[in-house]
Every structure is written in structure tokens, then in C-alpha cells.
């Protein structure tokens, strides 16, 4: 790691819904991520842990602390321990 970069490791709670829960076999899991991290960075990390999730590529967003974040968003997000990150496949409520 480059010594000029300062980053922190936070343990976030990742929630899987609908097809993403089927693909990972999980409803939720704790995940350690280097923060700040972007939506894109989170999605790369989640796919690394669960390669099956790439089946959803192009058809999902994330929710970070209950706010939607695109999986190609490069805005850095500062995450704290216990923050919720959700995988949000296409919605079908109503």
C-alpha cells in the first residue's frame, strides 16, 4: 500500500435481497471494507466475494445507509462500523 494513502477498515453489514439473496445464499453478512469507498468499489468487492452476483450486472443498484448508490458511482463514501449496504435487484413492489 502506498504510504501516502490513509484509509480505514470498517466492518459494514451487507444485506442481500431477492435474486441476490438466492445467488449468494445469504440474507446478510458482515464485510470489512477499506473506506472511503465508492459505489463502484463496493460492487467490485461484493463480486469478488460472490462471483455469482455478476449475473445481476447492469440491473441493480446498491443502497448505502438507505440511500440509493449506483454501482458505477465514483463518489467516495465514508463508511463506519455497522453501516448498512444493501444489494438492490430490480424492484417489483406494488
Amino acid at each position, binding site marked *: 500500500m502506498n504510504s501516502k494513502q490513509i484509509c480505514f477498515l470498517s466492518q459494514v453489514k451487507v444485506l442481500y435481497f431477492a435474486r441476490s439473496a438466492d445467488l449468494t445464499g445469504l440474507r446478510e453478512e458482515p464485510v470489512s471494507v477499506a473506506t472511503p469507498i465508492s459505489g463502484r468499489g463496493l460492487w467490485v468487492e461484493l463480486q469478488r466475494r460472490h462471483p455469482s452476483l455478476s449475473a445481476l450486472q447492469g440491473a441493480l443498484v446498491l443502497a448505502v445507509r438507505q440511500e440509493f448508490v449506483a454501482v458505477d458511482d465514483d463518489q467516495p463514501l465514508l463508511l463506519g462500523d455497522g453501516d448498512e449496504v444493501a444489494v438492490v435487484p430490480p424492484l417489483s*413492489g406494488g
Partner: protein
Amino acid sequence: MEPPDWPERRDVFKLCSDALSLQEVVEAARSPKCGAVSVFLGTTREDVVNGRKVIGLEYQAYESMVQSELSKLSRVIRERWPHVMHICLHHRLGWVSVGEASVIVAVSAPHRRDSEEAVQFCVTQLKALVPIWKKEVFEGGQCRWNENSE
């Protein structure tokens, strides 16, 4: 017409695993100040997909975010339709058989244009933004996650 100052305005949002009560939703939305209540009731349709008969739906939600998205949605509705009085939305979770209601939304306003437009907008935004998912369950037990097409 000046938007009224109504301290009694209500938002009632509920996720329920039991059958929805139309009466309860409409009563929560009614007001003696309002001449109009517009209601939408979404039901599970008898459907056949690729020759397989749908027997019901299984709903799942990101419950805490549903509440926060619905609160945001209420703020947007009240900004666009300041004469809207009460907003009540009940949504089923878990197993819903064909023919049962999965969602009921009721909005009241003094005049019907406001309640009509607001209830339609509410259902459109619910489908687009509120983290709820349904799985179609077919005869024989296969199933498939659905996707709102709007």
C-alpha cells in the same frame, strides 16, 4: 387557493403479513375536511407465464428503507399537491395468493383532482423507488423474481 395549514395531516405506512383491510386504509385517509378519497387496490392477477400457472406471490422488503423511502415520497407529494390531507399505504409481505390485495393506497383531499393525481403518483413512485420485491410462484413450485416494467 392558498394551501391550508393542517396540523392534523397524517402519513400511515404499514407492511403487513396478514390480509390487508380496505376499510382500515380508507378510514385512516378520510377526513371531514375532505370531499374526495382516491384509492388504488393492487391485486394478484391470475396469470399464465410460458404455460405455467401463477398460484401466488412471495413478497420481500428492505423494511427500514421502505419506511424512509415512503417518508421521502410523502414529502414530495405534499410539495406537489399541498392540498392533500392524509396518505395511507398498506403493503403485504410474505405469501399472497392469487386474487388477494398486495397493496392499498388511499389519499384524501378537499377536491378530487388532487387526490386522484397524488394517488397515481404515489403508486408509480412506490413501484419505482420503494425496496420491495415479489417472486411469482408457479404451480409445481418453481418461481421467478419479478421486475416492475413501468
